[in-house]
């Protein structure tokens, strides 16, 4: 009854266990405001409560049950909050929470008193939460989420002492390697999920055969292994790990023992049922583990910094664990799990002990630290025991798993025949190194004479600082002496999760009798001590030949070189040249167009329409166009001449509009043309021709080629279009313009009614252009181009001035005429506005800006606003009649004595358009005109001064 109740509680507890550290992190931040110890107690309580939450789940999990929970989150993307507690998860959870609790305790004493610890504990808890998430995730994407949370939080933890260069670099290095590995893992897990059809581990783990047989298996394997190896510090991704000891010692102790690096091997264990059992696994995992095992051990002894030594020993032991998984026998997997436990215990205690020594001595250099046994015998004893375990001394836990390793190397299935001895020999040699660096740690720190020049006198640390170490060393002994009782059941449960097809019978015992593995152990011991004894020779060799690369510097250099390379690349591909951008655009569009056409073979360029007969006017117009366009190009360096030729083009285009029955367009084009010319001439005063910048002839050739290709493309498309008939909706406009829009000029009805919304946008563009110009020119000071500066004495020829005055009212009358009739005949607000603006503009031209501006005291901005509002309000009026925006209405009025005439809301709209056009153009022109006046005033005032 009670059990059932608990198992119902299981999912809740599981979710709770995962939430606790994250919520706890926030609590700690709050507690730290109160006091340092409050922070410590809160943090400890958080970890402990995680353990407490685990207790009810223990029996079932130990008996092999798998507890899963699932809160759907993004099911269609395969991401749910799905958790799982099995033997493997339990093993790691215990390590994470148990050692985490000890670390918190230890840190409370270790961390300097000025540190309020809020940030520290919060990060540490969040990191622990991330680790828990990794080991408890049922959903692989969720696992990855937590995986990267550990990368992120470890980044922040390593950089905890961020004032130090080493810490900052080490943090970024760790992020680069482990975060990068995480990305590979992400790809691997996504693929894996795709193959399995689910991201749930339960499903994935059941599909090992399918996965191993899948063509993507090698890819998945490599990607997942990249994740695992980077995280667990396997060669050649190991380098971040030694640098990570820039973190405060409690962090290092945690990262190196129970977490972070263990996440990597956890992953190997987690996916062992799915990914192992192939030759590729054997080769990749086995060889990586072997190389890392040996390399870490070899380098460790060379480190004078004892934290460095320990770091490399971590690499080596993680290599060993990886190698064990790689050996791919059931027993080796068990050994791997066992060694995970053992390594966590002894490495945590070693780091804590090392932290105490560092704390007491103020240095970590073993060449200066000597004879610590004398100063702190109790701590030294603890350290020696832990180091013994690391070396694999019998009766200590490390010995047991190492012995299992040696056993598995003997007669391994991959090494048959004459190669049988290879693996045991390798294991023994690696063992020799392990013994040697352990020996160095013990002898060089605790014995080896007197300390050299220490900043302070070491003594035993506070009682409670040592306490966590005592607990752990106690475990080293307990597991070492009574392995089956201490860890037998949990190992069994964990192995059950890793080896679903059956856990081999194993008995953890201290004594297995005289056998080859024991002989290997003894040999390793003897040779290892000898090796340590002859170390000076080795150090000499190392000093002489080993490359001296400090990895933080190297990392920063690589990063910088990458940055430089990127800058260089960017400079090559992006010259920040508009000319290049434009040329690229032309090339791109041409290629895309050609591809689009060519990819549908068999379509002719010429369509079925018979061609329209050519007439003389067309040929004359073409001649004009040719002269105009080519002239503009040829004389583009002579500014004024180019403008003249451009005007010819404008004239011809207007003429073409007339010729092909578009009077409205012709009117608009003609008026716009005039304003454009005036605008260009206004600017030409300040813009030199192409005097300074000349293109090389090669460039001209290239541009000419591009232009011809582009022009030919457009011509071809136009030709293809013109020679084909098409079916259009515009019949509707022709049919409904008068009956529905109340106007006979269909173009105008389209502009103010059918597509009045376009026109509303268009006047906004015009208004903005003028305003933008105003904003740009505002306060701008320009020197006129030298040649244009000489001005004629007779600035405003009297003939011009006098004749333009009568023209103004007459042109305004024409403008009104065009405005009023636009709905029915060519014209409308645009053209009328342009005419009115030009009429006023003429006054500028004829009599100068002073004269004109004095007489045109309009507030253009207000007129612009009014025009926009009138046009919009006309559109809004239809809301009163419950019609959509811009629904027009019209009617015929017949006052007495006067013939009936039409009133249309569209006409009001057109008045808005009219106002905007007039105000925009006049604003633009008067602003450009102000430029010269500004310059003139400046000149005259400077003349007065001198």
């Amino acid at each position: 009854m009670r059990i059932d109740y608990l198992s119902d509680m299981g999912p809740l507890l599981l979710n709770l266990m995962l939430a606790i550290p994250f919520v706890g992190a926030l609590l700690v931040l709050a507690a730290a405001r109160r006091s340092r110890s409050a922070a410590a107690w809160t943090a400890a309580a958080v970890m402990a409560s995680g353990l407490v939450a685990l207790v009810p789940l223990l029996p079932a999990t130990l008996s092999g049950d798998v507890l899963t929970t699932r809160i759907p989150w993004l099911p269609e993307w395969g991401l749910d909050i799905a958790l799982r507690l099995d033997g493997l998860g339990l093993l790691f959870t215990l390590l994470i929470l148990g050692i985490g609790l000890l670390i918190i305790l230890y840190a409370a004493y270790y961390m300097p008193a000025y540190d309020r610890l809020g940030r520290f504990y919060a990060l540490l808890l969040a990191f622990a939460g991330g680790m828990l998430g990794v080991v408890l995730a049922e959903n692989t994407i969720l696992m990855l989420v937590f995986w990267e949370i550990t990368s992120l939080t470890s980044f922040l933890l390593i950089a905890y002492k961020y004032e130090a260069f080493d810490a900052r670099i080490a943090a970024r290095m760790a992020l680069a390697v482990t975060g990068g590995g995480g990305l590979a893992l992400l790809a691997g897990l996504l693929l894996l999920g795709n193959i399995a059809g689910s991201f749930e581990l339960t499903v994935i783990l059941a599909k090992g055969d399918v996965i191993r047989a899948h063509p993507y298996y090698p890819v998945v394997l490599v990607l997942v292994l990249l994740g695992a190896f980077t995280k667990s510090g396997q060669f050649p991704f190991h380098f971040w790990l030694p640098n990570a000891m820039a973190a405060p010692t409690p962090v290092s102790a945690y990262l190196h023992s129970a977490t972070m690096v263990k996440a990597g091997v956890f992953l190997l264990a987690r996916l062992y049922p799915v990914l192992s059992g192939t030759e590729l696994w054997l080769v990749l995992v086995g060889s990586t583990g072997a190389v890392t095992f040996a390399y870490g051990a070899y380098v460790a002894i060379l480190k004078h910094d004892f934290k460095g030594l320990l770091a490399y020993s971590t690499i080596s032991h993680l290599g060993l664990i990886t190698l064990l998984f790689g050996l791919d026998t059931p027993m080796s997997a068990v050994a791997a799990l066992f060694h995970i436990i053992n390594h966590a215990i002894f490495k945590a205690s070693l780091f804590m002990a090392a932290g105490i020594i560092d704390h007491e001595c103020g240095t970590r250099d073993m060449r200066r630290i000597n004879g610590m046994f004398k100063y702190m015998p109790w701590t030294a004893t603890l350290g020696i025991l832990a180091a013994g375990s690391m070396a694999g001394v019998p009766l200590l836990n490390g010995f047991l798993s190492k012995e299992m390793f040696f056993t598995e190397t003997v007669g391994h299935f991959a090494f048959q025949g004459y190669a049988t001895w290879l693996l045991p020999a390798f294991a023994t040699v690696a063992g020799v190194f392990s013994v040697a660096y352990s020996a160095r740690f013990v002898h060089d720190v605790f014995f080896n004479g007197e300390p050299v020049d220490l900043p302070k006198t070491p003594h035993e640390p506070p009682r409670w600082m040592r306490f966590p170490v005592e607990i752990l060393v106690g475990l080293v002994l307990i597991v070492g002496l009574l392995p089956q009782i201490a860890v037998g059941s949990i190992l069994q449960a964990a192995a059950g999760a890793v080896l679903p097809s059956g856990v081999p019978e194993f008995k953890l015992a201290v004594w297995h009798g005289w056998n080859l593995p024991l002989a290997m152990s003894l040999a390793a011991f003897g040779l290892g001590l000898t090796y340590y004894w002859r170390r000076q020779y080795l150090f000499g060799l190392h000093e002489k030949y080993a490359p001296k690369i400090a990895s933080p510097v190297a990392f920063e250099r690589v990063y910088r070189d990458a940055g430089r390379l990127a800058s260089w690349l960017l400079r090559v591909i992006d010259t920040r040249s508009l000319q290049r951008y434009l040329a690229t655009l032309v090339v791109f569009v041409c290629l895309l167009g050609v591809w689009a056409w060519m990819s549908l073979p068999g379509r002719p360029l010429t369509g079925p329409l018979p061609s329209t007969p050519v007439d003389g006017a067309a040929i004359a117009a073409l001649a004009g166009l040719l002269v105009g366009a080519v002239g503009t190009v040829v004389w583009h360096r002579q500014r004024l001449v180019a403008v003249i030729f451009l005007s010819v083009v404008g004239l011809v285009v207007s003429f073409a509009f007339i010729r092909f029955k578009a009077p409205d367009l012709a009117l608009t084009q003609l008026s716009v043309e005039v304003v454009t010319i005036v605008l260009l001439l206004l600017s030409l005063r300040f813009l030199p021709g192409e005097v300074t910048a000349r293109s090389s002839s090669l460039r001209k050739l290239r541009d000419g080629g591009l232009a011809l290709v582009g022009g030919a493309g457009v011509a071809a498309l136009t030709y293809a279009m013109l020679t084909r008939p098409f079916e259009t909706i515009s019949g509707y406009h022709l049919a409904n313009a008068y009956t529905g829009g109340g106007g006979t000029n269909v173009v105008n009805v389209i502009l103010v009614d059918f597509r009045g919304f376009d026109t509303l946008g268009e006047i906004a563009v015009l208004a903005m252009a003028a305003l933008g110009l105003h904003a740009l020119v505002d306060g701008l000071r320009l020197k006129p181009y030298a040649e244009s500066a000489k001005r004629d004495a007779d600035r405003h020829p009297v003939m011009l001035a006098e004749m333009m005055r009568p023209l103004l009212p007459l042109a305004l009358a024409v403008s009104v005429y065009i405005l009023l009739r636009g709905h029915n005949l060519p014209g409308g607000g645009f053209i009328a506005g342009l005419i009115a603006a030009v009429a006023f503009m003429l006054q500028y031209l004829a009599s100068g800006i002073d004269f004109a501006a004095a007489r045109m005291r309009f507030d253009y901005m207000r007129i612009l606003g009014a025009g926009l509002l009138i046009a919009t309000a006309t559109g809004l009026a239809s809301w009163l009649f419950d019609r959509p925006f811009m629904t027009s209405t019209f009617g015929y009025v017949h006052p007495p004595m006067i013939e009936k005439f039409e009133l249309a809301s569209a006409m009001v709209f057109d008045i808005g358009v009219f106002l905007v056009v007039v105000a925009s153009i006049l604003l633009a022109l008067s602003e450009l005109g102000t430029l010269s006046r500004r310059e003139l005033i400046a000149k005259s005032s400077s003349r007065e001064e001198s």
Partner: protein
Amino acid sequence: MIVDIVISLLILVGATFALVGSIGLARLPDFFTRLHGPTKATTLGVGSVVIASLIHSGAATGGVSLRELAISLFLFITAPVSAHLLAKAALKTRANRSAKP
């Protein structure tokens, strides 16, 4: 019919003078003599066509339409101004050129 003949004559006269003006523009030796060409096109050339059009549209609608006169009005106002400014500009350009070397 008579209307047609009148219109045709006017059109031909107009075209002829426009052509003559442009021949002058192309042919005459210096800027100031060339300046005289366009005035022909303006006044008599376009003037004739305007009257032709006027008669034509009047005949077509059966009423009197004087709209085309507006064209001539504007041309008469603007053409002398153009010529004047062109002449001034040419004088200025010439002065600049002679002052330069």
